[in-house]
């Protein structure tokens, strides 16, 4: 279990709403955008945690959603990576409308179970599908900020499932991280439209793939699985069948309504 440092006494202070300012937007894929935020007095976060975002219309109507933090704790600014969902009331605004200089109200960080720090040690095995890569990327960026000497003691593997090559989020950065770090392995599976020259996996994650990519259960890796529910169900059950302790498999699921 993650550190349970959060106090749960009723005297604890509420997690305050804060107003961030959009400093930069980065188009990651046609449907995915990263929002880099100026946020004074951010209390800090652990890789894997999320924030609640609240939008307010001119007549006072408000709605909220949760988004994983993409940036590592070391980053100067926090960033959120958001996928535009079909019919998404909030995601379509964040991906399509929000501009540099706009305010964005949020509170956090939230969640302490799906979170990892280099001091938790390794090995680290991250398995993600689609925009489920976002909290896993925060972990890999956090790990990349450690010294090479420390990283050698925490080998990491990422298995990332995407429908197509062009929908892989952070592809260039992942390639760069893996090229610069012999203790990080990145494996993709492209389930629907692999590029013509693609020699990698081209199917949904299954038991043989998990067996090839994962460490043996005896090495007791830290396991994080994030993505749509069918992927998470299949991967979590596959890992349990491979002998990993059910309680060591941490999951975060995106329902069809998204988060």
């Amino acid at each position, binding site marked *: 279990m*993650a550190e*349970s440092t*959060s*106090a*749960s*006494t*009723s005297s*604890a*202070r*509420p*997690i*305050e*709403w804060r*107003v961030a300012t959009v400093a930069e937007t980065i188009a990651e894929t046609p449907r995915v955008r990263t929002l880099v935020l100026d946020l004074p007095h951010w209390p800090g976060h652990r890789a894997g945690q999320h924030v*609640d975002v*609240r*939008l*307010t*219309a*001119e007549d006072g*109507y*408000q*709605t*909220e*959603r*949760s988004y994983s933090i993409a940036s590592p704790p070391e980053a100067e600014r926090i960033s959120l990576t958001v996928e535009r969902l079909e019919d998404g*009331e909030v995601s379509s*605004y964040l991906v399509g*409308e*929000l*501009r540099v200089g*706009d*305010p*964005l*109200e949020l509170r956090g960080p*939230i*969640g*302490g*179970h*799906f979170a990892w720090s280099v001091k938790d040690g390794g090995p680290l095995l991250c398995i993600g599908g689609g925009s489920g890569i976002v909290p896993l990327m925060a972990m890999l960026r956090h790990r990349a900020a450690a010294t090479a000497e420390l990283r050698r003691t925490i080998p990491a593997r990422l298995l990332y499932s995407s429908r197509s090559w062009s929908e892989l989020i952070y592809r260039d950065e992942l390639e760069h991280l893996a090229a610069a770090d012999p203790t990080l392995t990145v494996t993709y599976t492209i389930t629907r439209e692999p590029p013509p020259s693609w020699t990698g996996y081209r199917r949904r994650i299954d038991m043989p793939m998990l067996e090839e990519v994962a460490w043996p259960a005896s090495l007791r890796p830290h396991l994080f699985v994030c993505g749509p*529910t069918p992927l998470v*169900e299949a991967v*979590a*059950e596959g*890992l*349990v069948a491979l002998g990993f302790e*059910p*309680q060591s*498999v*941490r*999951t975060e*699921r995106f*329902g*069809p*309504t998204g*988060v």
Partner: protein
Amino acid sequence: MTSPISRGFHGRRPDAGAAVKLPPGQYETHDFPVLSAGPTPHTPLSEWDFTLGSVDGASARWSWAELEALPHETITRDIHCVTKWSKFDTMWNGISIDTIIEAGKAKGVASAPFIVASCDGGYTTNLPLADVTGGKAWLAVGYNGKPLPAEHGGPVRLLVPHLYFWKSAKWIRGIRFHDRDEPGFWEELGYHMRGDPWKEQRYTGDA
């Protein structure tokens, strides 16, 4: 603090009927999203049992068949997840916690002011007794006229629809009474001890 206007945000208003059913910060979904912190457990019904335990260590146990022999009710309620979705008029079938507690008393298990529900997979959640008695909570075994699917907590989940849905613990295997309110899994990790959606008690420190 006054919220800043989100320039260019118009939003998709719920209709008047939905608006009165939505607690603050929630939106209506017609799906039934799956959320859990780990793999879905699959305990065979032949091995499944439910234990009610008192503060002083007395306990009562029901097998699946014994639980099924208790009176069942059909429950139609709105449910509200702390991750912001709400789903209206969900239909369940299950055994009232009042029934379980009464049956437990007959087996020598005294009640106490708080409970902790425990589950396959190690999940726990805490509740005041007052939130699970008086026709407010059930052991749900059916959803939409069918046995409760494993990914939604089957064979049996706690159903406490007036609180955020993390309190409706999936894969429940037991309830233990406590004299004090002891935090469960999410409550240890910064989520609210009670979780009333109408007061927006999402996280520790929320009013």
